[in-house]
């Protein structure tokens, strides 16, 4: 069972976000970068499949030089190979990313392609289904449980107030939701072993893509702004529960106009 796991490197979710000069991107200086949290569930699932059924786990990212560190972390956890397509992931839309990933994946042998349900930060939730379309694969999005059968899979996917059980033929594409598994930490042995694996580094042009058609096309960011500072609300003392309850209901009725 061979898997490809697409991962994106994103700012730490705890990080304080500042807008960089130019007003279109965030200030990267001093930021800590991590593997996007949902991608960790994707990676873990692929590693478990490798452990139970054999095969390879290739981690793949499109991003700048610093993204190599994220690939190293994935190798340390148990991925067997890594592919780094280098380029400015800040100047490209999701379809552009999907086109690059598709071109890279076409050079590999795979049964499953894993992604996160959303890249934390840009919060798009777009690359998975786009990539599935480009590779002509069935997709199951926001997966919380995965079982593999003969030439097919059964996946549980989270929808509003319910869980859908979907059966798909292999090869297929899965996007991971929290709950799919508990991602492991890297072991010291894993970290040492990962250092010996060479990362396969390429450019989009190496994959036969025309860079002029990938960047700053279709969906282009004009501005990035901080939300307006919220003025502090009213704080009241709740030591008299009945009085507090009256004030809350007054707010719900007259300010929020909720009923």
């Amino acid at each position, binding site marked *: 069972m061979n898997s490809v796991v697409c991962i994106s490197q994103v700012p730490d979710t705890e990080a304080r976000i500042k807008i960089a000069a130019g007003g279109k991107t965030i200030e990267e200086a001093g930021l800590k970068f991590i593997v996007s949290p949902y991608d960790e569930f994707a990676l873990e699932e692929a590693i478990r499949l490798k452990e139970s059924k054999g095969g390879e786990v290739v981690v793949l990212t499109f991003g700048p030089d610093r993204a190599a560190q994220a690939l190293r972390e994935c190798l340390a956890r148990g991925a067997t190979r890594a592919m780094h397509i280098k380029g400015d992931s800040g100047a490209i839309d999701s379809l552009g990313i999907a086109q690059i990933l598709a071109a890279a994946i076409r050079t590999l042998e795979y049964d499953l392609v894993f992604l996160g349900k959303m890249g934390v930060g840009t919060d798009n939730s777009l690359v998975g289904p786009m990539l599935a379309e480009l590779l002509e694969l069935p997709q199951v999005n926001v997966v919380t449980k995965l079982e593999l059968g003969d030439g097919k899979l059964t996946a549980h996917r989270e929808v509003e107030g319910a869980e859908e059980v979907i059966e798909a033929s292999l090869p*297929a594409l899965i996007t991971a939701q929290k709950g799919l598994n508990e991602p492991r930490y890297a072991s010291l042995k894993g970290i040492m072993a990962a250092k010996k694996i060479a990362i396969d580094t390429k450019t989009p042009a190496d994959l036969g893509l025309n860079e002029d058609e990938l960047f700053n096309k279709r969906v282009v960011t004009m501005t990035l702004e901080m939300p307006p500072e919220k003025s502090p609300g009213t704080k009241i003392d709740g030591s008299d529960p009945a009085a507090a309850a009256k004030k809350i209901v007054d707010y719900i009725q007259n300010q929020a106009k909720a009923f």
Partner: protein
Amino acid sequence: MAKILVVCESKDGKLNKSSKEALSAGRSLATESGGELHAAVLGTAGEASAAEAGRFGAKKLFSAGDSSLDAYGTEPWTAAVKAVIDQASPDVVLFLGTSAGRDLAPRLAARLGVGVASDVDRLEWADGKLKARRPVYAGRAFATVLVDAKPAIATCRPNAFSPSESGDGTAEVVKVDFTAASSKARLVSTESTTGGEMTIAEADIIVSGGRGLKEAANFSLIRDLAHALGGAVGASRATVDAGWIDHQHQVGQTGRVVSPPLYIAVGISGAIQHLAGMSSSKHIIAINKDPEAPIFKIADLGIVGDLFEILPALTEEVKKAKAAH
């Protein structure tokens, strides 16, 4: 003259709330440009929505009435919406921010070779192009993007656009030819995970509980208030991780991002990952015994006190007010 197409979802012949929101957003775009609003409703009950779609301003309703489209499935829906687009040739296509809409919009966009602005909370025109605002970094920043493609595709963030009727008459039904092809994936079953309770995804009011509840059984205090208000039950990750409540209820970065008109946080400290999932709610009330709890920084109304005393009193007061209403 711009044509705006909204890909709606209906149940038992009725449009859902997100459809009404997206139709209203689409109508503003149409009005601004002197254009026309169209709706697509798939499945055998699609035509039943013609009057309702019309009331929200749709002039035409494109329906593909095949039974393979009655439940959402990625492949049949992608093919059917593609058929609608080929026939309607819209300039803008709006999808809902539902699990179906989020599955479908990017797949279709890749088929058409166009981009998507996802989860947008504002839409307008800029020099004949679609300009959209979307929250990024879990609501800690806003990106304004220009969608330069035909059609320009966006998914609408739930609760961001208020549904308003235009009072127009029934939309003209346009039938779209669609024959189901074989699919590589199929829906085996759908199991409810909320036991029929209202979900946080579409609720107008959410009452969320945190670790301050002390134990699973005390979630009944949250449920009582939510039921009295006609709202849904939300939860912090700490309570989900403790096994007090199902993950479906989790609000936040690794749960659901919600922005209801009213959000009530009870015994929740206000960690950045929780705020990420609810800070764009219109009105926020927080109940916490710690006056320094970060949740108070974003609460419109904060009550410093013991939730075990305040919640029962509040639920009673809500019931009284509702009875008098």
